């Protein structure tokens, strides 16, 4: 029942967007904004071949690897810094000085350091995403209700058990939300990184088609990239829901 409800709203929203797009296409003409049905037709056509799939695979691989890498480094580090305040006092000024810096400006540096292949792109996306996860996780642990720590002490577990049974589950909801929010930035950084000095990925298709004035192919790339962003976001969202069921019950009250 609720699933149908959500699905219905998505379909309505999708049709409304198509309508707006169509109006825009009429207003601007096919050289600026091709009509949605033309783009959809071209897109379905492209999906029948292998080229577009190859680019989708490259982009998906980069963004997925980067986000996993960001998670496995930033989440544990955030827990560590949040719990070990003495060490955090030295590290956090460094984090906060560099946090507002838009990591994308480091693109040329990364390309020089890590080459033109996947590594530089993955590292750059991971850096951008990881910062947000790190900061949110650290704050979550710092503001953790002291009663949970005391309660755990009465049960007499080891530090490793404390991490597993208290710190990780306590930090997880906020960290998952930050991962979800960061997924938008991750795809944006992916686009920037792929629009430059590479021959593969959706960002490459978009910029390449734009250069050749092929509006239809460009919009196929844009459509694919939007869907990739949506998939990444939804994956994070579903994982969050599965792992943090208790949190949802809490906010329902």
């Amino acid at each position, binding site marked *: 029942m609720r699933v149908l409800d959500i699905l219905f709203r998505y379909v309505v929203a999708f049709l409304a967007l198509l309508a707006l797009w169509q109006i825009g296409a009429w207003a601007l003409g096919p050289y600026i904004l091709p009509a949605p049905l033309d783009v959809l037709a071209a897109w379905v056509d492209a999906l029948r071949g292998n080229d577009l799939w190859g680019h989708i695979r490259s982009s998906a691989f980069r963004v997925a690897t980067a986000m996993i890498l960001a998670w496995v480094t930033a989440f544990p580090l955030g827990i560590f810094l949040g719990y070990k305040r003495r060490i955090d006092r030295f590290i956090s000024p460094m984090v906060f000085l560099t946090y507002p810096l838009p990591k994308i400006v480091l693109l040329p540096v990364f390309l020089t350091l890590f080459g033109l292949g996947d590594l530089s792109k993955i590292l750059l996306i991971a850096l951008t995403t990881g910062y947000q996860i790190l900061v949110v996780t650290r704050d979550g642990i710092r503001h953790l209700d002291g*009663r*949970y720590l*005391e*309660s755990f*002490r*009465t*049960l*007499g*577990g*080891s530090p490793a*058990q404390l991490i597993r*049974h*208290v710190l990780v*589950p*306590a930090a*997880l909801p906020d960290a998952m939300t930050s991962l979800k929010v960061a997924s938008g930035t991750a795809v944006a950084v992916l686009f920037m990184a792929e629009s430059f000095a590479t021959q593969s990925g959706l960002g490459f298709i978009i910029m390449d088609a734009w250069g050749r004035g092929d509006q239809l192919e460009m919009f196929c790339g844009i459509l694919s990239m939007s869907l990739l962003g949506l998939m990444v976001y939804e994956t994070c969202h579903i994982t969050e829901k599965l792992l*943090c*069921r*208790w*949190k949802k*019950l*809490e906010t329902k*009250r």
Partner: protein
Amino acid sequence: MDLTAPLRISGLGKSFGKACVLRDISFELPAGASLSIIGPSGCGKSTLLSMVAGLTKADEGHILLPENCRSAFILQDYGLFPWKTVRDNLALPLQLQGIGRKERFEAAQAMLEELGLGGLAQRYPVQLSGGQRQRVAIGRALISRPDLLLMDEPFAALDAITREHLQNQLLDVWKRRRMSFMLVTHNVAEAVFLGRYIMVLGGRPARSVLWVENPCFGDASSRNSDVYFSLIRQVHEALEAAQKNNGPDDTDSAEGGLA
């Protein structure tokens, strides 16, 4: 292992910075007996329990637990973990001891049945009422079969009927297991109903101002007996006197304790 040995506390004292909170607390609690501790707010009751549990270091004096005595502590605010289901919360002490999944879940289920919570295993703490949550906390403390159960105002947040029900349930559990327990409370009737011994703390720093034995402890019908009521009056008077002594003008607070 000699579990018939009493719990001995002698000359116990504790200060936080300059403020001396407890001084010269001494008593002996026979194995399998219960002690109610009552006193004005902030007089150091939680601190005393925490020291007995070994979570806070005493500054002076000794706590002598029977050899191999296992203690369990129920904190003032239940201390359940919101991210774990009722069953996982209950089974956690066993899990921390490295006991296997099947065995600890069976133990948790048996404990739930014993506490009348059979159907709630898969719920999360937010989905429980205050009384149910408190029973889970008691279950979590009992599941590792402690010889000494420490409870800090366990029923304070409950309504009168739930509170009375849980008091009876605690007595039932005690009759089956015969562990010792120490219970901090604000409620005189509760102190008298649940304590074979009753200690009133008062003064600044706090010491024991009254120690009485309750001759009709454990008798469910005692709630209406004369002895019960006279004991309540006695404890109540001691508590009132302690409360008066606890005022800021009290000369006992010479140690600069504006705490």
